[in-house]
């Protein structure tokens, strides 16, 4: 008789966007897993042992393997498990998806944060940059239901912040989502966001919106300070 498949565990935290990317990927692939919640103020031996370099979540544990960094985890999940593919098959499309995921990871968060928490000219400049970034992603969605085509894929997971977190962060700072990402200027992104958050697999591992909002609102002063040093 074949031995049972090695257990899959995901080290994560409630509000974390990168953790959601990994969880959603596991659900899309139909991989059973155990979510282990970490207290980042008191990191577990498990976390420190398996991510000694960054000491961050998410960490995917698959048997005795530990995979770190959410985008690396997404590619691992795609390659190690059967199920619907997360990345497109064509090498050029794969390169394009990786390019935009890297763009989202490196260019998008800071201006969004500053457009909510900075003041005066800095805030205005950040908002301009947010809209420039969103315009690029809006164009990538032209004629497509999801970045991945007909179903959610690697780039949709990479972009999940624009489907769920951006509205919460904006609201926690007293800014309307329409200021950053209006329906009129970004109809594709708004439509995509609504589809993303209501997807069967994704829905079950998205942090509850009210709870996420409360989490961000509890840190208003810290958020403003962070914006000053960014």
């Amino acid at each position, binding site marked *: 008789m074949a031995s049972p498949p090695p257990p899959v565990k995901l080290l994560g935290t409630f509000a974390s966007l990168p953790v959601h990317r990994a969880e959603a990927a596991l659900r899309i692939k139909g991989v059973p897993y155990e979510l282990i919640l970490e207290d980042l103020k008191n990191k577990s031996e498990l976390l420190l042992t398996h991510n000694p370099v960054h000491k961050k979540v998410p960490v995917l544990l698959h048997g005795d393997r530990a995979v770190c960094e959410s985008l690396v985890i997404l590619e*691992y999940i795609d*390659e190690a498990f059967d199920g619907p593919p997360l990345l497109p098959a064509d090498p050029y499309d794969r390169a394009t998806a*990786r390019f935009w995921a890297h763009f989202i990871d490196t260019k998008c968060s800071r201006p969004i944060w500053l457009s909510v928490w900075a003041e005066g000219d800095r805030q205005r400049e950040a908002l301009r940059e947010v809209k420039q970034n969103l315009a690029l992603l809006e164009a990538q969605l032209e004629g497509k239901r999801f970045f991945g085509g007909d179903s959610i894929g690697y780039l949709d997971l990479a972009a999940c912040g624009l489907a769920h977190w951006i509205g919460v962060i904006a609201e926690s700072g007293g800014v309307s989502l329409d200021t950053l990402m209006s329906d009129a200027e970004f109809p594709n992104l708004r439509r995509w966001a609504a589809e993303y958050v209501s997807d069967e697999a994704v829905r079950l591992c998205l942090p509850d919106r009210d709870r996420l909002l409360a989490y961000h609102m509890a840190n208003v002063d810290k958020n403003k300070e962070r914006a000053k040093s960014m």
Partner: protein
Amino acid sequence: MAGEQQQPETELVLLDFWVSPFGQRCRIALAEKGLPYEYSEQDLLGAKSDLLLRSNPVHKKVPVLLHAGRPVCESLAILAYLDEAFPDAAGPALLPSAADPYARARARFWAAYSDRVYEAGTRLWKLKGGEARAKLQARAEIVEVLGNLDAELGEKEFFGGEVFGLVDVALVPFVPWLPSYERYGEFSVEETAPRLAAWARRCAERESVARSLHPPEKVDEFITLLKKVYGIE
């Protein structure tokens, strides 16, 4: 291999800048794979070419790989693309085989991590004299990063084991920058990461590396030039 006659549908052009370590990653990969391509030097300190601006409108940076006219941007995405689009290339794959997704994940992790050498190193020479605390932080970071890389390499010949692979290609272009970082940061790679130092010497013997990298003196001259351009004392 550069300049060899190519078929239009397989034509490869690399938009690059002579001293760019990110461009050198691509040059080394193309050489290791035995793939002919046209090297196109870009003027980054002057006016950027129309071709560059059209090919990488988002970042306006090198390297850009044009394959039959279609642009691929971001050095690590280019390396993965070369593996995937040219599976029958003369040279070996950069990534471990599809039969070993865990080894592939580890390679991707450490290849991305290698960028930290350049990020921390750049802060070392870009910070002005008065920013002592930030400089100490940058020094601490680069020492930690090199230590982590040294530990990951361990006693292996290459990061890829016996194979000169993705992580080796991703990291080796930063080697000529290290003597400058050592000077600006007042630390020693030989002391901090002795196995990495030995690895760097081994890699320098590979033809693809020797042909693609510039000597540390040239890199140091370039850093001095950039400091003038940025108005850093």
